[in-house]
């Protein structure tokens, strides 16, 4: 079984930049959340969801948890299903959403 997602995490400009490729649902949201929390707790976390094909309510719950322990910035394509989902769930209003990783890193708190 191919893994559902691929997670690339890099340090960039004082922030932790995480690139989530693939899908996040209840089967892997916990794992993704734990990994990111361990590395990004208390720090600026730029989450790049532009290549995330699927993110359901379990994934959104994971983001919500991260938002409380990190300085979370999200990069996404608002027209995508992930963007729609975050809008519908009201999550887009709770975090800073950016078009590019650079903008996300540079933006003041």
């Amino acid at each position, binding site marked *: 079984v191919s893994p559902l997602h691929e997670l690339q995490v890099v340090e960039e400009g004082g922030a932790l930049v995480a690139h989530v490729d693939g899908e996040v649902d209840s089967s892997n949201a916990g794992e993704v959340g734990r990994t990111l929390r361990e590395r990004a707790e208390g720090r600026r976390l730029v989450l790049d969801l532009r290549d995330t094909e699927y993110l359901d*309510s379990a994934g959104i719950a994971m983001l919500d948890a991260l938002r409380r322990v990190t300085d979370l910035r999200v990069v996404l394509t608002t027209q*995508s299903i992930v963007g729609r989902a975050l809008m519908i*769930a009201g999550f887009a209003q709770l975090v800073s959403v950016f078009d590019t990783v650079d903008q996300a890193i540079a933006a003041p708190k």
Partner: protein
Amino acid sequence: MNETGHRLPQDGLDERFRRALDSILDLVVVERAIRDDDGRIVDFVIEWMNNAPVDVARRPREELIGRRISELYPALAGGELIASYARVVETGEPLVVPVMPYEDVIDGQTVSGYYTVQATRFEDSVLVASRDITTLETSRRELEIALRELEAAQRLSRLGTWRIDLTAKPSASATVSTELQRICGLPPGPSRELDVDGIDRFVHPDDLDLVTRAHQRAMSARHPIVIEHRVVRDDGTVRHVRTYSEPLVDDDAVLGLWGTTQDISDTIANRDALDAEHGRRVTAEMLADVASALNAARAPQEIADGVARAMRGFNDEVMAIALAVVEPDQPVLQSYFGGASVSGELAARYMRAPLSVDTPASRVVNTGRPLLVGDRVTQRDEFPAIRADIDSAGYEAVAGLPLRRASGEVFGALVLAWRQPREFDRALVALLHDIVVVVSRAAERLELLELERSVARSLQLGLLALDVRSTGAIVRARYRAADEAMEIGGDWYDAVDLADGRLAVAVGDVVGRGLPAATVMGQLRAALGITALTASDAADAIRMLDRYALHVPGAHCATVAFAIVDPDAQTVSYATAGHPPPLVVSPRGDVEFLHGGRSWPLGIESKRVRAPADVHRLEPGSLLLLYTDGLVERRGEPMQVGFDRLESVVRRNWNLPLRRLKQAIFGALADVGGESGPPRKGLTRDDIALVAVRTAGADDLLFADAFRAARSEQAPARRRLRAWLERVGVDGETRDALLLAVGEAIANAIDHGSRGDETQVVKVEVARRDRDILVSVSDTGQWQPGVEGYFTGRGRGHLLMQALVDDVHIDTDHQGTIVTLRLDRQRELV
């Protein structure tokens, strides 16, 4: 006996004397004594007789003279009369017999009569003068009898006569008859006079005025009157009498009154007794009515209504009835009100009331004793907690009686209420007790019936529960009882996973209803479950089931359709025993009845060999329907019409998710007012069982998938669905939106519906329709949106589904929970 007498010569009588005797109307006879050797007189011979016409036998005197008395009148031979004549001759003492009955047989004729006989000595003879007093005596006797009868009649009818003479001196007097004396308790004697005061003292003091005025009225109007009043005897006993008084009038002057007084005490007692008897009969009839009404009752409300109706007919003062029954598991009284006069507001408030609230009903239940309250003031004192309701209800009198089981245990109360205050006489209380016995029995019977229903329901739920874990097919079933009240008939179904991924499905129909039918169903179902595991094919399973059915009494003539679905081999092996043919629909919507493998019903001894199973191709995504005849059969209609109707509704709905398909079929074929289908003639009477199997697979118009309820299965399931959506031209935003919505439903089904049991199965069905796409995601759990634990932490899932598609429905039944999503296809175009 030696005759030694001699004849008295005719000329021995003085001629003048003879003539004188001849002029006498009485019969005069000279009879000479005849003596025996000892000189004793033994007989008399007629010497002479006067010209009085004839004797008792109308014989002329020529025939009589010279003949013996004993010979002429055989009855007198050696009798008292001859002895008396002898004494007259011997002693010279004349004989007078004022009335001598005489009866004899002379010349073969019976003669009888009464005679007065006088005999005097005349030499050695008697001169006998006799007079026929038969007519007189007969009249006298008749009169005597009549008088005795009259007296007896008076005594029997207790009718006394009286007469008041106002002109009597020195004061008015009253003459009273024997019977009236008896009525007044006086020692009865011949009619006698009393003074008027003497008769008045027998009139009851309360009635004296009435009697006096009545007599005055009779006299002034000169017209008879009849009154009823009471008489008090000296010993204090009271008699009821009816008195008829008529004035005695002479030349316009009223001289007095006469009349009759009849003792009617017994009549009154009889009248009361008759009234009581009539009352008892009415009561008995009413009780019989109540009993029969209550025996037909199928719910406590019907009992309350029945009692109210019956009481109305019997005693229209009864205004309200409450049947209060203690709920099985809690100290709560559930009340059913009969009679429209109970206000809805009150009824609603007391429909369920804790036993701890002191009301007439709870008092009766708690004490186990009858309660009789005759007026509202007492009610208010007795039940202070509900004073306001007592006033607003407006009932004065209340009676409550405990309902008892056969064991004596109190399980409720019957309460009756009256608008008017009342006294509870013995008859009413007795009636209430009788009613409550009938009601108790009926209510207890209902309890048992309800128990049986609930057992049958549980049994049915158990029997009809499906536990299919196949991932090769989706199975849904529905049972619908013929009528709501009886909830269980003889139709059943089953589906069993076989070890190698095959699935056995059966639908059957046993004769009968209720628990007995359910028991047989259970046996057949269990047997089939086992045979399914070992049978080589469907026909083999039916043969094994048949052998078993021969030993189950209630299984005679049971029918069954049996199918083994093999998703891998893409086949169905099936056989039927006296059962309608299964229906199969290809993934492209081709509908076909499966007529192969048919044989006769189960439990019938036969040497014939049942048909072998038929095998039919079953492509992935095919639909198989097994059903009972209730679905297609309708009164007064050929079966084929039903089959056509079924085929037609299936053609229109074949690719719908199974739950929707079932609804469409039942809506069109079984339910009143279904949304589609031709007009139906009448309601179906039979119960209906339907099992639908859809093998996993996909085609242009449908997608069917089943997988283990594991989180790791979500993504593969989404991928399969995504591939199909793309294949049928659903892509882009629509595809992604649908996938996310369905993904949320799948996640819920896995997490909540299956509660971590990964052997459970989640099913996804999608149908492409003209206007929309319907998706159903089902699990075997019983969860509800909004219920604690669901969506509380992940309310976003529901929110996402709601926002991404046009309709979201979540339905839970005993088979599990289904989320149905509808996406309007027009959205693709916008």
